[in-house]
């Protein structure tokens, strides 16, 4: 009997099963029809990408100060370069931009602190971010105290304004939305009907109409010496609109929690707020993360609508820059830049929400 005492050493899988070539064969060329589609697809990509890359990088002009520095064969990033600080800060006076810079730094530090799990003192940082930071940000940006020159909100703009509108909208809309969702499921008739009417009213009107009402009708009804700041009007409009949407998203999550959960909590003698705060909401909110982030992302993009009430958000300031007669005709560059900025923020939000879903995943998912 032939007997081999040694194990046969492991050998790599044959070339035809692993490696890039095998992957190509298995996924792209596993049959005549698929091969044909792959080739057509590749050709389309070639048609689309080569000119795009040539336009955006190879033939593009990067250095200069005026339109004369652009060959017009490809993109003229000189335009974006010359206007960059305007796209970020709007019409904020250039010698004061250190103020928004501090706020930007603080804003991103706080977000990072809250988002990275290893960092300590989460509770205190969160309290600071929600209670103290908005006040600091307002005082620093608006000025008027501590010998800071006043910068009226009409000069705020660009990415700064977009982030401000979106952040305030998100942070204010979430708690209001939770309250409205709970109220709508409540058995108290007045609370319930108030919430239903509120949600159905604000959700039934387009955001653009709300902004128009806030900027065109509201001033006519207010006495002449009362003038509510446009930014504040826009913020209130966005928050009310967004909280109605948020309420329905959260209500969807609440519906999905089996009734037994709440009944069990009640059987343990928990009060309503404890039942909601400790049992129902944590489960519901976790389940609704995709929905909530979806709403946040759509809010982030909806902030561009403030353009129609004369506020220069990121897109608005790009469009205003496009109407400078010295820079006419660079709309493609401007819009590509704006789209890219929006994409960065929306994509990061989306990635973070996916991470959060994985982290909070407790094995209930099917």
């Amino acid at each position, binding site marked *: 009997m032939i007997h081999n005492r040694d194990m046969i050493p492991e050998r790599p899988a044959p070339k035809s099963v692993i490696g890039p070539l095998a992957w190509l064969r298995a996924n792209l060329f596993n049959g005549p029809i698929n091969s044909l589609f792959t080739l057509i697809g590749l050709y389309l990509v070639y048609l689309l990408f080569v000119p795009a890359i040539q336009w955006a990088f190879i033939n593009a002009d990067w250095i200069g100060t005026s339109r004369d520095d652009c060959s017009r064969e490809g993109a003229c990033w000189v335009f974006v370069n010359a206007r960059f600080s305007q796209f970020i800060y709007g019409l904020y006076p250039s010698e004061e931009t250190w103020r928004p810079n501090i706020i930007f730094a603080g804003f991103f530090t706080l977000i990072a602190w809250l988002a990275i799990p290893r960092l300590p003192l989460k509770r205190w940082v969160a309290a600071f971010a929600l209670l103290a930071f908005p006040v600091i940000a307002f005082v620093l940006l608006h000025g008027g105290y501590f010998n800071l020159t006043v910068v009226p909100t009409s000069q705020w703009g660009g990415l700064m304004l977009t982030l401000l509108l979106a952040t305030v909208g998100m942070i204010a809309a979430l708690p209001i939305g939770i309250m409205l969702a709970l109220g709508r499921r409540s058995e108290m008739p007045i609370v319930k009907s108030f919430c239903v009417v509120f949600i159905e009213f604000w959700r039934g009107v387009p955001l653009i109409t709300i902004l128009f009402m806030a900027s065109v009708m509201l*001033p006519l009804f207010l006495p002449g010496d009362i003038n509510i700041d446009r930014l504040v009007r826009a913020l209130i409009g966005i928050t009310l609109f967004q909280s109605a949407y948020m309420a329905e998203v959260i209500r969807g999550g609440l519906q999905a929690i089996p009734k037994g959960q709440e009944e069990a909590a009640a059987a343990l003698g928990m009060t309503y707020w404890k039942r909601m705060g400790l049992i129902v909401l944590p489960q519901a909110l976790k389940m609704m993360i995709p929905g909530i982030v979806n709403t946040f992302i759509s809010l982030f993009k909806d902030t561009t609508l403030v353009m129609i*009430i004369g506020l220069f958000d990121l897109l608005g300031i790009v469009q205003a820059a496009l109407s400078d*007669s010295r820079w006419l005709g660079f709309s493609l560059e401007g819009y590509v830049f704006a789209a890219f900025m929006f994409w960065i923020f929306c994509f990061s939000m989306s990635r973070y929400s996916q991470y959060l879903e994985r982290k909070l995943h407790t094995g209930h998912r099917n």
Partner: protein
Amino acid sequence: MLNKKNLVLAVSTSALALASISSAHASTLEDTMERGAVRCGVSDGLPGFSAPDDDGNWQGLDVDVCRAVAAAVLGDADAVDYVSLNAVERFTALQSGEVDVLSRNTTWTTTRDTTLGINFAGVSFYDGQGFMISRDLGISSASELGGAAICIQAGTTTELNLADYFRANDMEFDPIVFDTSEQTVGGYQAGRCDVLTSDTSQLAALRIQLDDPDASVILSDVISKEPLGPSVRQGDDEWFNIVKWSLFALLNAEELGISSENVDEMLESENPNIVRLLGQDGNYGEGMGLEADWAYNIISQVGNYSEIYDRNVGMESPLQIERGVNALWTDGGLQYAPPIR
């Protein structure tokens, strides 16, 4: 009997009346002096008329009208709070007192002047609907455009004016309608139409966006009247006069040959018109509640009308719009200001 429409009208007019009464409790001039800045409504971006430059400063012809008013009232052309307004909210902003001057390429029409509670203080730019065609077509007059394919932007008065003009001249045309001005230029550039029509000021802005601007010409024919000018709220005649005469001062300065460069030498001038305009003899600003040097401040800080025109929309600007009807009456144009005396 009140029907529903009347009721709505009554409610909205009383709302308007309320708004204007309550904001008229102190005069606009006093409010402005106290605030130290003129609140001026400008467009949220219109080439040559109002747009922020690379440093974030507003500039343009409409903006310079605001600056002139600020120079006259406060002696400082930079003391302006700009509020960018879109076409819909501009009148509300003026009525509700959010701005005190509306200088936002607004056409002076009967309806606006008589029903919106505002007054037009004059004409800062005579605009009108014109035509841009390819130079190769060799057409020199709008009357030769019969049968042409014409690119227009949808939903604007341009569309109506165009139809009226061609019907009146018994010509056919083929309208090709686009939604935005960018699409309209795109259509023209791609050869979808032979002619592009819009207001002349806009045509000039559209022309420099073409790949080869020199291959297209703007015909000198104008088929509609679009007088653009600043407006103020009704009910404050003092403020109305200030804006009106700030505009007239710009025109008078050009007519008398006073510019921002020579205004200091002109203080020595013997010409009685110049002496009066610059406030060297008597105070012609008194009736408006202003200092004697109001016009001097305008000219030294903002310039005269031709300087403003040239640097924003004229030959020194990228737009290169000819003076045309915007020339002074002495040069065969329409710009005419009453004398200062």
